[in-house]
Structure formats: C-alpha cells, structure tokens
C-alpha cells in the first residue's frame, strides 16, 4: 500500500493572468520515487516551487502528513522537511563549497561563532558520498558546472529532509556521476525518504522511479505506477500523440572541407586540430570539464588562442564573435540564461539581435516592418511557441527559449553552426524538433558542430564524432564504428586502438 506524504489538491497558478497550472493534483509517496514529466513549460518546476514556498499558489490546498500546510517561503518548507534541487543552479559562487552546502544552517558555537572546521568536515562527508573530489573550502566559482550540480545535490541531501525534490539533477552530470546519484537515491528510498524526480531523460525514469505523474499544459494527464508504462506510452501522454523515431539522422552528400582548425592552444585547450566538411555534422563528446565549451568559445573569438583556423582553405583571424559571425561561424551557447538570450527583451528583438544590419532603413531608421516579417518567418520555420513577436523571452518555456537562441544564430546565415548542448533541459518533443532542424540545416549545406553530454544523442545525430579529454582531442569516430563504450573510453583518456 502506498502511503501518501504530500498531497497537493486542485492547485492552480496564474502569472499575471496567465494560467500556468490548471486545477491539478499531485501525490508524493513515502519511500518511493515519483517521476514528474511533461514537455517544456508543462508546469513541473512551477508546481514544485509552489510546494516549497517559492511561489504562492493561486488556488488549491497542500497536505503534508495529512495536515494542511501553506509555506510562505523556502525556510518554512525546509523546516518541515522538504528540500529541493532547483532546475537552474542556485549557488552563491563567491562562497566556498562547504558554505554553500550549509548556507542558512551553519553550525554555530554557543558564542554564535560559526564552527568552520565542523562545517567543512560535514561538507566533506556529503561530497564523498557523491564521489566529488573537491576541497570543501574551494570557491564554487572555481569548479565546473557539473561539479556545481553535485554541490547543489549535496546541499539538498544534507538537509536530511523527508521529501527531496530533484528538478533535472542530471543535466550536467556524466553517466558515472549519474549512477552515483542513483545509488544515493536508492539509499534514500530504503531509509524511507520520498523523492520527486523531474527529468527529460526517460531512460532515467525507468531506472529509478516507482511512479510517474505526467503533466501537459498545466493539466494533470495521469499518475501511473512505472510497471504499467513504457517509454512510448509516457511520450504519448506527454505530447498527446505518438512520436516517430527519436534520432532521425539523415545521410547527405558531404562536400569540400570548409573548416580546418590547426593546433589551437590556449589556457584551456591544447593542440586541438580537426576539420569539418560542408554538410557534415560533427558531434563533440567528452566528460564535463573536458573543455569542449572552451574550445568552441575559443573558435568563436571569446578567448584568445594560438594556432590557425582555415575557412575554405583560407587562413582567418577571429578576435571577437563579430569577426566569427562575419566569417559565417555562429555559436549557440550552452548557458541560455547567462549568455544566450535576453530575458527582458521580446522574441523579435532577440531573434534579430545579431543581424540588425539586415534591417537598415532610410535615414538610419531601422526597418521595423521588415524586422517583424523576418522574425515571424523564423518563429514559423522553427515552430517557436509564443503569443507573438512582442512576447518577452522570460515568459517562454526553456525549449522555446532555446529555439529563439538558435534562430538568432540562423538569421546571420551561417555556413557553420556550433551548437553547445542544444537539447539540455529540452523536452522530448522539442528535442525531436531540434534534431529535425539540424537535419534540415545539414541538407541545406550547412555544417554543424554539436557539443553534447547526451551520448545517445551524439551517436544518433552525428556523421562523425570527436571525443575530448582534458582539453585535448582523444579521438575521432565514424558514426558506424562509434558506440557508447568506445566514446566513454576515449572520454576518460584511454586509447582505444
């Protein structure tokens, strides 16, 4: 018999008049892992934020151990034993790992003095448990995003809550770390804790979850035990229709070599050389911290680097993103919020930001009519879900923000498109749409570099795969010969052949 710990009843939520959650109910059971799935913008994070007191619900009731509760802020939910790992990293970068883990719960002596040694020792315990080898006194800003994610998890675990909510905890984790996390989750389950697990990676759901709740457009579609479900079934519930094959890689005629990177070196990467053909999709795999992002940013002109870059056989010099775009190399960043989109600007302004010279009008005026038409074209072409060109980006769901970010790069009409983690945090439906887009660009003769931590995705989409390890290229693989195992071997720095 399942024992209900948390029951959310008839929850509704408006954001300035827009209904985001519509009279939905949600249960969390003792000692079980509840998966919460749904497309981008379905309302998963919002629902959990209501449970933890970040947002105030518009309607409905929440019961914790059959008692009606109403949390006005995070400290209230925390004190009742509910912890949450937010989807977006929420760490204080200028503080140490240990300070972050115990922020708000620092151990103090009788004299109200913080006991630093105890704090860091306790922090070390949780880091060990998650297999994170970092000094708890290290500042968070000095560790990689993946490690930061683990710190975030350690923080939630250390609260010793009875309900732990994990909103896409594995987005930045390697398979090994993910496995470690799953071990921890099993332990938690055994000790009677309850977990809500939100993820767009459905295989994970089948690995660790006991029950599944599916949301669509803020409505409850259903709650089922995992035994009664399979992947296709879940997808169907999520998107309301069947999806065809997930990785629809297409073969295209590959042309001449268009890009050649020769011995690129800087503080991040060492002697990186590779080439790219017209119409080719190059997948870039590697563990976190393998400096794939840094490599792409170095090519894009964010970081200075030694070495040469050839475009169509001609040596080019790229000192800034501006140079790069002028040469037809566009980059879609991995960190949308930080440097991909401008949340306070609308869809149109975001899409055209890199290509405003296309809309020169008379007398130095911008031709806003033309701008409007063009952005609408892209909204349609990429099926961006928005109420219009004037919608502020912060009101778009993650997947749609991602599409806007890609649209912005596309509008510059690039010959080479670099996509860094293009599907991170994007739902299955939108993922598929992005893959379709990649294929479409490819068939139009564009060359694509796709950095991704999702190995099945790399395998599914790429024509060729480059694997990186600690700033160096550790090998190239053809799509035929590549397997998950070979990629992992190269990624940890071992030679395959």
């Amino acid at each position, binding site marked *: 018999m399942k024992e209900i710990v948390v029951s959310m009843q008839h929850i509704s939520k408006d*954001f*300035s008049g827009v209904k985001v959650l519509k009279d939905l109910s949600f249960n969390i059971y003792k000692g079980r892992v509840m998966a919460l799935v749904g497309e981008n913008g379905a309302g998963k994070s919002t629902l959990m934020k209501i449970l933890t007191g*970040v*947002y*105030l619900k518009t309607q409905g009731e929440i019961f914790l151990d059959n008692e009606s509760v109403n949390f006005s802020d995070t400290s209230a939910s925390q004190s009742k034993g509910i912890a949450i790992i937010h989807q977006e990293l929420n760490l204080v970068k200028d503080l140490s790992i240990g300070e972050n883990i115990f922020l708000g719960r620092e151990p103090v002596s009788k004299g109200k003095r913080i006991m630093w040694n105890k704090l860091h020792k306790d922090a070390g315990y949780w880091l060990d448990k998650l297999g994170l080898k970092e000094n708890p006194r290290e500042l968070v800003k000095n560790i990689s995003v993946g490690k930061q994610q683990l710190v975030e998890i350690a923080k939630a675990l250390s609260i010793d809550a009875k309900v732990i909510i994990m909103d896409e905890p594995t987005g930045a984790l390697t398979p090994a770390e993910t496995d470690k996390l799953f071990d921890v989750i099993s332990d938690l389950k055994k000790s009677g804790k309850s977990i809500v697990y939100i993820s767009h990676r459905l295989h994970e759901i089948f690995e660790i979850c006991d029950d599944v709740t599916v949301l669509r457009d803020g409505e409850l579609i259903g709650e089922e035990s995992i035994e009664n479900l399979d992947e296709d079934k879940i997808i169907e519930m999520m998107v309301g229709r069947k999806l065809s094959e997930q990785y629809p890689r297409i073969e295209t005629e590959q042309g001449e070599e268009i890009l050649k990177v020769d011995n690129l070196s800087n503080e991040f990467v060492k002697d990186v050389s590779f080439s790219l053909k017209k119409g080719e999709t190059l997948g870039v795999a590697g563990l976190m911290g393998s400096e794939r992002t840094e490599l792409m940013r170095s090519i*894009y002109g*964010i970081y200075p680097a030694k070495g040469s870059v050839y475009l169509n056989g001609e040596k080019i010099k790229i000192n*800034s*993103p*501006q140079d*790069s*775009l002028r040469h037809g190399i566009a*980059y879609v*960043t991995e960190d949308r919020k*930080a*440097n*991909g*989109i*401008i*949340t*306070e*600007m609308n869809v149109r*302004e975001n899409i055209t*930001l*890199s290509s*405003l*010279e296309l809309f020169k009008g008379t007398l*130095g*005026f*911008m031709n*806003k009519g033309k701008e409007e038409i063009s952005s609408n074209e892209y909204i349609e072409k990429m099926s961006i879900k928005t109420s219009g060109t004037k919608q502020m980006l912060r009101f778009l769901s993650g997947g749609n923000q991602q599409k806007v970010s890609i649209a*912005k790069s596309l509008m*510059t009409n690039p010959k080479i498109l670099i996509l860094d983690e293009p599907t991170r945090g994007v739902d299955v439906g939108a993922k598929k749409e992005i893959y379709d887009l990649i294929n479409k660009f490819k068939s139009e003769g564009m060359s694509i570099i796709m950095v991704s931590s999702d190995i099945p995705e790399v395998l599914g989409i790429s024509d060729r795969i480059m694997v990186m390890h600690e700033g160096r290229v550790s090998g190239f693989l053809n799509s035929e010969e590549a397997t998950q195992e070979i990629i992992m071997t190269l990624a940890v720095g071992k030679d395959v052949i």
Partner: protein
Amino acid sequence: MNYLKRILKNKPLIVLIVASVVIALLNPRFLTWSNIVTVLRQTSINAVIATGMTFAILIGGIDLSVGSVLGLCGAVAATMVSSGMNVVLAVLIALLLGTFIGYLNGSLITTGGLQPFIATLGTVTLLRGAILVFTQGRPISTGKTPASEYFSEIGTGFIGPIPIPVYIMVLVFIVAYYILNHTRIGRYIYATGSNEEATMYSGIKTARVKRFVYAVSGMMAALAGILLTARLGSAQPTSGAGYELDAIAAVVLGGTSMVGGIGTIGGTAIGALIIGVLNNALNLMKVSSYYQDVAKGIVILIAVLLDRKQKSSR
C-alpha cells in the same frame, strides 16, 4: 479608451498630472502661461543632462561626472566667447570637449575595467580640480562683445512665445527617442543593459556601445553647460555641483531601472518635469527654505514608491 488605459498605467505621468492639479488649485498663478514657460525653461538644463544620464543608466551604468563636465565645458565656452571667438565654433568645441571627457569615462569603464560609479567619481574629483585651476576660482563672464550677445541668445532668447532652451530640450528628447527606438545602437544599448554577456555573444562590441553611451552623456552635460552659461552670461567654478543627483532622480522618477535595460526617454522627460514643477511650486507657495528639502525628499520617495516595479509576482 485604450489611450486612457495607457496613461493610467504610466505612474510617473499620473504623479505629474496630480501634482500639477493640486498645485494649480493651491496657487492659480501656477497655470499661467508665463509660469509654464518658466518651468519649462528651468527644466531644460536638468532634462538635457538627464537624457544623457538615461543612456548611461540604460546600459546599467551611471555617470556621476555630468555636473563637473557641465562646469568645465561652461567655463571653457565662456572663455572662448569672451575672447570673441565665433560662437558656433565655441559651442562646437565645448560640445566636443564634453563628448571627449565622456569617451574617456567610457574607456576607463571598458578598457580600464572600472565600475562606472567609481570611474566617474574619480573623474568628478579630477574635473572639479581642473575647473578650479582653469577658472582660478572666479566666475568667467562671457563679456559684452557682439559674440557674447549672440551666445547669450542660446540661453535667454525666444522664438515666438517659447524660449530657445525649451526648443533645444525638445530636440534633444526627439533625437534621443529616435536613437533609442529606431537605430541599431539604441537596440544594442537596451541589450547591453539587460544582458551584456549575451549581447557580446551575439557579435556586438559592447565596449564600443558603452563608450558611445558615456560620450553621449558627456556631450549632453556639455550642452547643459552651454545653456546655463548662456543664460547667466557667466560660468561659475561651482556650476553643476550636485546636478548629477537631480538628473538621476529625473531618470528614476521616469521609471528607468537602475539595473539597466528598462526605461524610456519619455519617462525621463516626465521625471525632469516633476522635479521642475516641484521646485517651482515650492517657491510659488513660499515654502520655507528649511522645509523645502523635506518636501522634496518626501515627494521623490512617494513617486518612486508608487512606480516601483511590482516585485516579481510569486
């Protein structure tokens, strides 16, 4: 109907209208044509500075040096005019000087990597010293030459029933509105203020955008200095001291966010008018000097409280 709604949502405008109605009821002279003209003319200097300040605040910066730029450029203009130099040339040189100082501010911030507050604070100290050295602590009269007569028209003249500084103010507003809303650089200013990194990743040289913005701010301060000097017929060594605060107040009263990325020139115009009306009314109603600051502080706080951004709804 729709217009009415938009007006009702525009809190600064409502503050201005309500304040004006109340003042007019208390003192009928407030709404006489000559007083309206007076208020507009008095507002013009702060409005011009505030326009430049709007640019600076929109990119998430601030320009504390405007008062001292005003002082220096005013003094330089006065010196040139009194020496009989061609007025147009003198004005251009003064504007260029202001633009140049603004550009240097921008370079301190971009190339130098300084935070705008501290960079322009340093400039203030330096320029105030420079003004003292330049003026030797004395006012500089524009003199009584034909050139100076011509120059003084800029500050005191009328075209029809409206003073020239008012035309200049309106022109400045229009050009600024045009730049911010209908040109690329305007878009880049908003983008830089909202998310500098994303703007940079989009292939825009944000450093260049910033230098442009501070140059504009410097130029506007210089223009205000010219207006003030022309109006007074002389430049004081202390001219412009504290003007940055009035300008910032106008910008913020107009609804521009000090975090950057959000704000309009129309708002700034209203903000400057609120301050102008307030100063005028306090004098008209003979509020004792001791109480003027109290009244001003309260009005400013109430106005910004009314217009505060709704805390992101939770």
